[in-house]
């Protein structure tokens, strides 16, 4: 095992080094060169100009990316796993403000025919306000539809932090943090804590969306929303919620039909008491067998007494199978089974190195998680693997490090492999393959 880990480590050291073989506009330019290129109005921007990109593989293995620069959302693709990219196509011909940071960035999704769907938040003049925007392409990103605003409340208030997902049957779902009810309460001189979560969907390829519906009141107002779809083509949505006065734990909702969400369930019990913006949202991946793999961050108390006391009606959480020595603080994984029972939260990552921003993906019963750490000098991404649906986890493996700042890591899968997407300020946009290495460990 140790030898295998050494091989893996060596492989990633090589992968993490900047390559000289890439084209001049490739993704490994230094930030200074990238800045000069981005400032040149006579050239199209590149992915290096973007702060917070999103990416997804098509069925054929083409990597599609969505990102923004100077008032435009751009889409381009790579057929060589991010070694080089096609010239970008602007989604919105008329420039507008675009949110592009860790928790809120342009999103991209594909249907089975590789039609491309893109969403983003456009901030408005008033502080914390915004609209959720959407556009699609049915011609391989040669052109995009005129962007539309998806929130049907057009008051100048918050409609932001959207999540986008496309089901197997082509249904498109969007869910976001919405402050229309908070604004209404303010007008009535009433208090309203946090935001609400709203959603909508389209069953005609994004040409029209159904009336917005509310999922819940009092969500946390500045953490990303996570969404995936299940075997019934229904969305599953996960977000950080506000329980009681200021308890920041996570809530999940599945759906019986498109317009009938099930009752939201609380899925984390870390009891983080804080009146603040964590800027630290969860992630989920829904398996073909409708197991929900969840990861999240919380910063609750060091001891785990509150964990045991707070289980409530969730009896499956009483005995933790993971390393829970850190109480309610740090990163956690848990699975919700088809019968809605939930496995005990498994703690991962090094709290002393600020383990943060977790991401999860599955392939059948194989599950991968990734996250970011910082030791005072280097930002590092780590990965951990389970071959049995998240019941047991292999030792964490180091994937790559950088010295000058980086984006969150994201897991991406195509038919043959699993990768971590990571954009660093120095090395640019990179994909790190992890599937083949974790396969070796499993054997």
């Amino acid at each position, binding site marked *: 095992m140790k030898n295998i880990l050494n091989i893996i480590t060596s492989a990633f050291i090589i992968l993490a080094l900047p390559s000289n073989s890439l084209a001049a506009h490739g993704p490994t330019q230094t930030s200074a060169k990238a800045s000069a290129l981005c400032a040149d109005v006579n050239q199209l921007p590149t992915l290096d100009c973007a702060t917070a990109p999103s990416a997804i593989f098509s069925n054929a293995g083409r990597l599609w990316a969505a990102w923004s620069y100077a008032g435009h959302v751009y889409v381009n693709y790579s057929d060589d796993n991010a070694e080089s990219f096609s010239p970008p196509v602007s989604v919105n011909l008329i420039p507008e403000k675009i949110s592009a940071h860790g928790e809120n960035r342009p999103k991209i999704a594909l249907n089975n025919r590789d039609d491309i769907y893109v969403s983003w938040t456009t901030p408005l003049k008033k502080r*914390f306000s915004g609209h959720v925007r959407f556009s699609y392409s049915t011609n391989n990103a040669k052109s995009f539809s005129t962007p539309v605003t998806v929130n049907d409340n057009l008051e100048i208030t918050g409609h932001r932090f959207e999540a986008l997902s496309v089901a197997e049957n082509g249904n498109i779902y969007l869910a976001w943090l919405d402050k229309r009810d908070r604004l209404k309460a303010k007008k009535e001189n009433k208090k309203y804590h946090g935001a609400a979560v709203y959603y909508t969907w389209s069953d005609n390829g994004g040409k029209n969306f159904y009336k917005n519906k509310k999922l819940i009141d009092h969500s946390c107002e500045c953490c990303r929303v996570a969404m995936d779809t299940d075997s019934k083509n229904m969305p599953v949505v996960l977000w950080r919620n506000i329980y009681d006065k200021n308890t920041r734990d996570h809530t999940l909702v599945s759906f019986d039909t498109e317009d009938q969400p099930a009752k939201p369930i609380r899925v984390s019990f870390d009891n983080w008491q804080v009146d*603040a*913006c964590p800027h630290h949202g969860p992630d989920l991946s829904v398996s073909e067998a409708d197991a929900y793999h969840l990861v999240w961050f919380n910063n609750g108390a060091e001891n785990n007494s509150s964990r045991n006391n707070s289980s409530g009606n969730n009896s499956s959480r009483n005995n933790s199978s993971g390393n829970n020595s850190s109480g309610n603080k740090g990163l956690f994984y848990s699975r919700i089974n088809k019968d809605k029972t939930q496995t005990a939260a498994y703690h991962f990552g090094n709290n002393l190195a600020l383990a943060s921003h977790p991401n999860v993906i599955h392939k059948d019963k194989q599950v991968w998680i990734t996250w970011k750490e910082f030791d005072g000098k280097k*930002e590092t991404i780590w990965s951990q693997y389970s071959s049995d649906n998240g019941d047991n986890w292999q030792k964490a493996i180091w994937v790559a490090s950088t010295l*000058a*700042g980086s984006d969150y890591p994201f897991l991406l899968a195509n038919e043959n492999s699993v990768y971590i997407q990571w954009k660093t300020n120095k090395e640019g946009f990179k994909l790190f393959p992890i599937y083949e290495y974790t396969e070796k460990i499993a054997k």
Partner: protein
Amino acid sequence: MKLAGFLILLLISSFATANQSPILFSQNSYHQITENEQSFIMLMWSLDCPPCIDELIMLGEVVKDHPDLNLILVSTDSISRTHDIHSFIEQAGLKTMKSWVFSDISAQHLRYSIDPLWYGELPRSYFHRKNQPRKSVTGRLHKQQIIAWLENN
């Protein structure tokens, strides 16, 4: 002569404007602040953080009655938002307070230079009193906390 006078006025006015702009916060800044200041509250905030905005408005009210309150305001926003940062601080009635903004090196490095165990939640406050260990608070401060701190100062 008139032209010379005008130029001097212009120079003074530019200097005053520059003085009002947030100072760039680098990896040594926290050390410098603790070296130069005695008792102070350092507030980490952002234009993108709703509770931070509420907190700064509350502090602006407190400062009216307690002009001796020594606040150090550190915005974690990008330096491209310097104008908005300054506008808001002025609007909140805190323009007499020292104001900093994160420089464009990695925010993670800057956060670590202040507190190696801070994940970046906002607002985050550090209460400093000479020769005493600092106290950190995550989340929105309340007026009573500030008054109590002032009374024990």
